[in-house]
């Protein structure tokens, strides 16, 4: 079988960070939703910008992280 091309592969570290970011986002969203249901809306602006920053990192990793061969 022909060896599969490794182009566009991510490193273990990049993938681990992407997974970690998603776990943080899930926890953050659950926490924010619970707080909003309790009537605490003051945390929304801060949570949004933290979430936005995490998404920016995740997008950068997914689209801009160097390939393994580079």
């Amino acid at each position, binding site marked *: 079988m022909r060896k*599969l091309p490794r182009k566009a*592969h991510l490193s273990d570290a990049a993938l681990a960070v*992407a997974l970690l970011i998603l776990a943080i986002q899930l926890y953050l969203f659950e926490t924010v939703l619970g707080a909003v*249901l*309790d009537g605490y809306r003051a945390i929304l602006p801060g949570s949004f910008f933290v979430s936005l920053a*995490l998404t920016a990192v995740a997008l950068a990793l997914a*689209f801009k992280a160097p390939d393994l061969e580079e």
Partner: protein
Amino acid sequence: MAQEPVSKPFWRRAFPLDLHEESRYSRREFARFLAVVSAGFTVGIGYLWGRKRPLEGAPGEGARHEPVPLEGAAELKAGESKLFTFRDADDRCILLRTHEGKLRAYRQTCTHLGCAVRFDGKRLECPCHMGFFEPDRGFPVQGPPTRPLAGIALEVGPDGSVRAVGDLAKPTEGGDA
């Protein structure tokens, strides 16, 4: 970087994968999927931020509504309760008098899965999953609920009549009447 052999036909360079490799899912694609899901959470938080109306069952921040007179509230004895509707016919609430003699009002919606809570004289009880809330501030004390009940602000008129006037901004704030 390894170069493709020049001798390969054009079609091979355009379609470098064999049929059995088509279902291959690269790490890069997986990372992109993770990033998109992450962006979805951000959009969700942004939606919650931009939404003006409170979520179902969530108290508005000190929102006031058309005052609702609570008939017979003054006659309630300690450990007794009565039901009333507030914002609309579906907004069912419970008014109770604690053993300290204070009047308290809460939405009847349990913060676990939305069943109607009732007052057993000592605690507010959700019969669906045996969740209990203490009557003074609506905090969960036993069972699956983890969030306090939504409180209703009460107001006592000069003639002693009691009216429901709005949502408590925070469940921890007193709704003394």
